[in-house]
């Protein structure tokens, strides 16, 4: 298939055509994580990837980030083929990924230091980004002095400091407690609205998907494929206790249950 002449606008934030990934391809241990993903994501759109564990949703995020190469198909972002990582697409991880030897502001301005920006410039941009996540007062602290939620906010500030057009988030709040998680979701929605960036958010929490997404992409169990895409047409700010929200949660639960059952059956077959 020829993907060199894509039939889509260069204004589309992310375009996946037949994207697939086989780990350790060509060896005995080869296993297919992701198959035949077609997906278009608009600028400023909030898309949640939902699926059972190990369904390849994180793999897709890594492919879009350019950290891994797709073994099939191709991915474009704003008209450019994704081949390497780019500061335009910032990735935020589940576990804290702050550099423990740098202060908060040095962490946030790490990308600028890479580009050789002056100290004054870095401090100014870091202060601005930290202001947006409400942590300007913690500028000179070190990551180990912060709570888990604060550390993830710093990670978000670090991503924002690069002025990305696409924010890729790999279960960023999974390690947080329920109350902190709810606060962080509100916080993320604020940041998303301000930044105008597209957000691709991986989770296996249905509540989180309904709270955040414009569209929910539901994945099948291994190999990961897009099972269906569910639009969440609830007005923002969302009332998560409304009947509509409940109906969406039930719909997503049903969709997911089949896949979880299948994944379990597969695992049992493997161990039997």
């Amino acid at each position, binding site marked *: 298939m020829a993907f060199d002449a894509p039939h889509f606008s260069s204004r589309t934030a992310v375009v996946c055509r037949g994207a697939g990934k086989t780990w350790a391809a060509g060896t005995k241990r080869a296993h297919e994580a992701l198959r035949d993903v077609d997906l278009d994501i608009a600028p400023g759109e909030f898309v949640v990837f939902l699926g059972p564990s190990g369904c390849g949703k994180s793999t897709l995020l890594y492919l879009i980030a350019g950290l891994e190469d797709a073994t099939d198909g191709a991915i474009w972002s704003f008209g450019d083929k994704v081949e390497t*990582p780019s500061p335009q697409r910032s*990735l935020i*991880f589940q576990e804290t990924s702050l550099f423990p030897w740098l202060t908060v502001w040095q962490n946030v301005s790490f990308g600028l230091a*890479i580009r050789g920006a002056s100290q004054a410039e870095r401090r100014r941009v870091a202060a601005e980004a930290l202001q947006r996540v409400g942590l300007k007062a913690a500028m000179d602290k070190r990551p180990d002095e912060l709570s888990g939620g604060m550390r993830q906010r710093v990670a978000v500030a670090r991503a924002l400091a690069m002025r990305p057009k696409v924010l890729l988030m790999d279960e960023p709040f999974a390690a947080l407690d329920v109350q902190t998680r709810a606060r962080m979701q509100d916080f993320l929605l604020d940041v998303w609205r301000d930044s105008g960036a597209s957000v691709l958010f991986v989770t296996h929490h249905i509540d989180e998907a309904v709270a955040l997404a414009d569209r929910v992409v539901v994945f099948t169990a291994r190999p990961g494929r897009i099972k269906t895409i569910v639009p969440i047409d609830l007005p923002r700010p969302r009332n998560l206790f409304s009947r509509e929200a409940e109906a969406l949660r039930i719909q997503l639960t049903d969709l997911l249950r089949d896949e979880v059952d299948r994944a379990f059956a597969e695992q049992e077959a493997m161990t039997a």
Partner: protein
Amino acid sequence: MAVVERDVRPSDAAAGTSRPAARWFLSVGGIDWLTKAWWTCLSVGLFAGLWELLWAVGWADPQLLPPPHIFLSDFGEQGKFFNTATRWQVGQSMGEGPSAFESVMITVAATTMRVFVGLVIACVLAISVGVAVRYWHVIDKLVLPTVTLLSPVSPIAWLPVAIFLFGIGNAPAIFMVVVALFFHMVLATIAQIDSVSPNLINVARTMGASKHQIYGRVIVPAILPGMLQVLRMNLFGAWMVVLVAESTGVGYGMGQVIMLARNTFNPSLVFFTIAVVGVLGFGFDWLLRLAQRRILYWLPDTQEKLRGL
């Protein structure tokens, strides 16, 4: 958290009103330091006490296992033996040359210098080679098999090689220290690099860092804590091997003293030298831990957590 608790301890609060010198002493963790020193003394004291007890009841033969009060008592007599450089020169009488104290100090300085220089060279070489092995694939293929092959070779086997290559003097002793540490430290460096969190590397990659920048700004700082730990372990290795290395002609050196003590059947001198090596190694380790706390300011204190168990 422990720091905060320490601040409100009544003894410290009382110190706030005393003389400035005392206040400064306590504020830099004087109490803590004193407690540590006290426990160190107690630990060594108990060991020595047990030995003395064995001697007192007649189980430890003073001719073979002289207890501390014997081998430490005649410093002047013991110190003379440390003059291993000029003692045997023709036309030199016993009264000439450096005094006992000077001899000990010269010997200690000579041995410490060899350990220190060897350690620095081994560290710089091993970290450079370890990083290069991961940085360039071809170096990995070319160098790693040989390094692994030479890793298990005992320093004793390198001793003749050191003499073939460098003759006698400082150079073979330093070579021995380097060769005894180098191969292990290369493997340790590689293991440290491999255990760097991929998240940290990926963050740098998404921000557009080059391979060079990823190594310089992420991998090297990330492996520092582990490397200092490796260095501390190898510090003791360096002290062990330097005595072996000094058994060849090096002029002044602790290894020479041990050889002399062995050849003249002088247990007191053996234990005296062991005591000196112990104190030196302890001092080096203390300095290194101090440096570790300065350099690795970001590491949490796990010791405190374990104490709560």
